[in-house]
C-alpha cells in the first residue's frame, strides 16, 4: 500500500509560503505486516492491560470527557484559518490528527489499553521496549488510562540497528481522570533508514496532570504530534522535548495545549540541535479557550544551529479567547555564542569538541529527567556513537 496523508495541521493556518500549515507523509509501496503489541517488561500491581481493545472501546472510554468538553463550548469564534473541524471525528484530538486514526482503523490495529487502578500510585515505570528488525513495517496503538487519583509512568523506547530499514508508526492516547497523573516518556533511537511517526493525544480532568518527555534522536523522517486538552480545572500539562537531527534527517512536530478548564497550567520546552542538512519544523500552540480563566501557559524553544545547510522552521502560536490568562512563548535560534566558544577554547577545548560538548549538554538536560538510569546511559551511548 501507499501511505499518503496530511498530518500535523497548525491549529490556525498561516501564509502558505511558509510551508508549515501541515506536513505530508508520503511512503510508497509499504507492506504493513505486523502491529506493535507492546510486551510490558515489568508487570505492576494496580496496572491492568487489555491488548485487544477496539476503537469503539476507546470512544466509550473518552465519552464522559468528550461530553464535558462539548458542554464548555461557547459562541466566541475560533481563530482565523481554524483547522479544528479537520479533526472533529477523533475520539481524542491528537497532535498529528484524524489521518492517523484513519490509518490505524484501516489497518485494523488493535488498541492496547493500560489502566492504572483508582488511587493506585504505580511505583515503578512500566517499560515498553521495541526493537525494529530489518524490513519491519509496523503500527502500534495504545491508550494509557489513569483512573481517579492514580499515578503511572510509562517509558516507551524504540531501537534498531543503524542500518535497519523499516517503518514504525505509534499512536498513544492518554486519559488522566480527576487527580490522576500520567508520566509518558518516549525515547526514539532508530536507524536513519527508518521512517517514523509518533502521535500523542491526551485529556486531563480536574486536577489531573500529564507530563511528557520526548527524546527524538534517530530515524530518517520523523513526524511527531502531541495534543493535550486541559479540560478539568487546575489540570496541568508539562512537556520536555529534546531532538538531535543530522545528515538528511527531518523532524516535523506539532504540539498543542488546549486549555479549557479554569486555572490550568501548561509548560512546554523544546531543546534541539540541527546538523548537516537536517530539516526541522516546529509548531507549538497554546490555545486558551473561552472559560479558561486563571490559566497560564508557557512554551520555550531553543535551537542550536550547527550547519549552514540546516533548515529551521518555527511557528509558536498563542490562541486566546479568554481575558484572564497569562500566556507567553519565546524562541531562541542560533549558533554557539562567541562567548561560549571563547570560554571553551580558553580552557583548551577546540571548537569541534566544544560543539559536541554543547550537543551532549543540551540532550542530557532533557534525558536526565527520565527516571531510569539505564535508559539515560543508552541515550548517552547513542549520542556518543553518532557524534
Amino acid at each position, binding site marked *: 500500500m501507499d501511505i499518503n496523508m496530511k498530518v500535523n495541521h497548525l491549529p490556525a493556518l498561516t501564509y*502558505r509560503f511558509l510551508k508549515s500549515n501541515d506536513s505530508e507523509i508520503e511512503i510508497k509501496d509499504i507492506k504493513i505486516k505486523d502491529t506493535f503489541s507492546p510486551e510490558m517488561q515489568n508487570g505492576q500491581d494496580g496496572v491492568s492491560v487489555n491488548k485487544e481493545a477496539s476503537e469503539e472501546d476507546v470512544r466509550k472510554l473518552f465519552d464522559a470527557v468528550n461530553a464535558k468538553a462539548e458542554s464548555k463550548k461557547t459562541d466566541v469564534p475560533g481563530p482565523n484559518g481554524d483547522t479544528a473541524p479537520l479533526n472533529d471525528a477523533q475520539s481524542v484530538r491528537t497532535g498529528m490528527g484524524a489521518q492517523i486514526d484513519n490509518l490505524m482503523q484501516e489497518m485494523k490495529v488493535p488498541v492496547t489499553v493500560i489502566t492504572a487502578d483508582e488511587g493506585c500510585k504505580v511505583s515503578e515505570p512500566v517499560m515498553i521496549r521495541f526493537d525494529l528488525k530489518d524490513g519491519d513495517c509496523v503500527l502500534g496503538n495504545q491508550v494509557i488510562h489513569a483512573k481517579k487519583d492514580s499515578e503511572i509512568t510509562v517509558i516507551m523506547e524504540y531501537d534498531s540497528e543503524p542500518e535497519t530499514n523499516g517503518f514504525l508508526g505509534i499512536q498513544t492516547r492518554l486519559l488522566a481522570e480527576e487527580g490522576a497523573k500520567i508520566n509518558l516518556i518516549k525515547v526514539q533511537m532508530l536507524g536513519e533508514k527508518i521512517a517514523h511517526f509518533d502521535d500523542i493525544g491526551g485529556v486531563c480532568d480536574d486536577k489531573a496532570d500529564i507530563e511528557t518527555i520526548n527524546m527524538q534522536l534517530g530515524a530518517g523522517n520523523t513526524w511527531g504530534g502531541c495534543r493535550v486538552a486541559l479540560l478539568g480545572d487546575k489540570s496541568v500539562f508539562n512537556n520536555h522535548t529534546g531532538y538531535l537531527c543530522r545528515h538528511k534527517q527531518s523532524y516535523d512536530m506539532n504540539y498543542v495545549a488546549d486549555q479549557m478548564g479554569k486555572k490550568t497550567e501548561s509548560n512546554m520546552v523544546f531543546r534541539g540541535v540541527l546538523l548537516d542538512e537536517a530539516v526541522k519544523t516546529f509548531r507549538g500552540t497554546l490555545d486558551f479557550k*473561552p472559560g479558561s480563566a486563571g490559566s497560564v501557559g508557557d512554551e520555550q524553544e531553543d535551537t542550536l544551529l550547527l550547519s549552514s545547510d540546516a533548515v529551521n522552521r518555527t511557528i509558536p502560536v498563542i490562541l486566546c479567547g479568554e481575558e484572564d490568562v497569562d500566556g507567553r512563548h519565546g524562541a531562541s535560534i542560533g549558533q554557539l555564542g562567541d562567548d561560549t566558544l571563547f570560554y571553551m577554547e580558553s580552557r583548551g577545548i577546540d571548537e569541534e569538541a566544544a560543539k559536541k560538548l554543547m550537543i551532549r549538554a543540551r540532550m542530557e538536560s532533557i534525558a536526565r529527567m527520565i527516571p531510569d538510569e539505564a535508559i539515560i546511559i543508552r541515550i548517552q551511548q547513542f549520542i556518543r556513537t553518532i557524534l
Partner: protein
Amino acid sequence: MADNNKAVVDIDRSVYDIKDVENEQDFYRMEDGFTEDIVRKISEEKHDPEWMREFRLKSLELYNKLEMPDWGPDTDDLDMNLISSYVRSKSDMKGKWEDVPEDIKNTFERLGIPEAERESLAGVGAQYDSELVYHNVKDEVAEQGVVYTDMESALTGEYADMVHEYFMKLVPPTDHKYAALHGAVWSGGSFVYVPKGVKVDIPLQSYFRLNAAGAGQFEHTLIIVDEGADLHFIEGCSAPKYNVANLHAGCVELFVKKNARLRYSTIENWSKNMYNLNTKRALVEEGARMEWVSGSFGSHTSYLYPMTILKGDHSTMEYTGITFAGKGQNLDTGAKVVHQGKYTSSLISTKSISKSGGIGTYRSSVIINKEAKHAKTSVSCDSLMLDSISRADTIPGMDIRTDDADVGHEAKIGRISDEAVFYLMSRGLSETDARAMIVSGFANPVSKELPLEYAVEMNNLIKLEMSGG
C-alpha cells in the same frame, strides 16, 4: 461590568463619519463589478499608455484565476459584484486648497489636513474616492529636487520611464488575488522621488478619503528614496460608515536605495464596513534603513502585513505597530521580513488590543536566507485582552536557513492587571479612566514613534475605542 471598559472622553467620532452626498452632476461612478469592459473604461478614463492598459487586462485575468487565502479572516460578505471600482469628482486635481470643490474641501478641513499642511508638512496629497483632488509640495522641498505628485501625472509625465521601471515590480499582480485586482483597477495615489543625498526634514503626507458607499479605493503609492536620502512619509485614511461593504485594496511600493532611510507611518481609521486588503512592501538596499510605524484602528476586516526585503548588506528594518480590534472587527495584521543581505537586522515590535468581541490576530513571517550571514532578528508581540468575548491570536512564523543568524522571539498575552487598576484608583482615578490610561501606556511604544500631532490622534482613537465609540 460593560461600563468598566468605558472611559469618559470628549472625542467626537462624527468628524470621521460625515457623509457627503455625491450626485451624478458632480461625480462620475463606474458601474459595479470587475469585468474586462470596466477595466477598459477605467484605462480610457485615465488616458493610460498602452503598456498600462495591457498590464491592467493581464492583472484582471490573474484576479479571476487566483483564490482567496484560506488562512485569514472571512470575506464571504464582501460581494465584489456590488463594488464600484472607480468614483471620481468631475473636478480636476488642484494645487490650491481654495480651488478644491467646496464640499470636498470641507471634509478635508474637518479632518485637519490643510491645517496640518500649513503647520508641519512638506507636502500633501489628498485623495477623495478614486482620484487625487489636491496635491502640493512646499517650494523649498521642490527646490531640493523632491518629486511629490499624483501617480497619473507621473505615469504620463516627466517620470513616465521611472514609473514603468518600478510599477508593481515589488508587488507583482501574481502575488495574491487582491494584488491582481489592484493591478487591474488601480487609481490615484502618490509618486515620490527623493534625489541622492537629499534629506527632507519634515514629513510628506497623503490622506485617503473614501466617501462613496459601496465603492473601492485602489490607490498606488510608489516611493523611491535615492542613495543617502532621507524621508518620512505619512499616510492617513478614513471613511464614513455605511451599511454596505466598501473595499480598500491599495498598494505601496517603497524602494530604499543605498544608505538611504525611509520612515513610513500610517494611522488607519477606515470605517467599520471597510474590507482593508492592502499590500505594502519595501526593498532595502545596502546600508539603508526602513522604518514602519503602523496604527490600525478602523475597518471591518483587515489583511495587512507590510513586508520588507533586506536585500543589501548591512540593511536594517524596524516595524512598530498597534492594532485595536473592537466590536465587529476582525483585524489580521503584522509584518513580514526577508533577510537576503549579510549583516542585516530586523526588529518587529507589535501591540494588539481586543475588546467587545473584536478579533485581533498578529501574524508575521521572518525568513533568513542561506546567504544572509550574521543576520539578526528580534520579534516581540504583546496582546491585551479587555474582555472574554473577544479574541487575540498570535501566529508568527520563522524560516531560518543559515546557522550564522541570531533569532529571538517573544510573545505575551494577558489582561489589565487588577493591581495596576487598584493602584491608579488609589491615586484618585476612576476605574474607567484607570483602564484607559493603562491601555494608552500599553500603546506608548507606538505613539512615541509618531509626530506629536499624530500621536495625539492615535491616543484619541484609543480613547474613542475604549469608550465604545
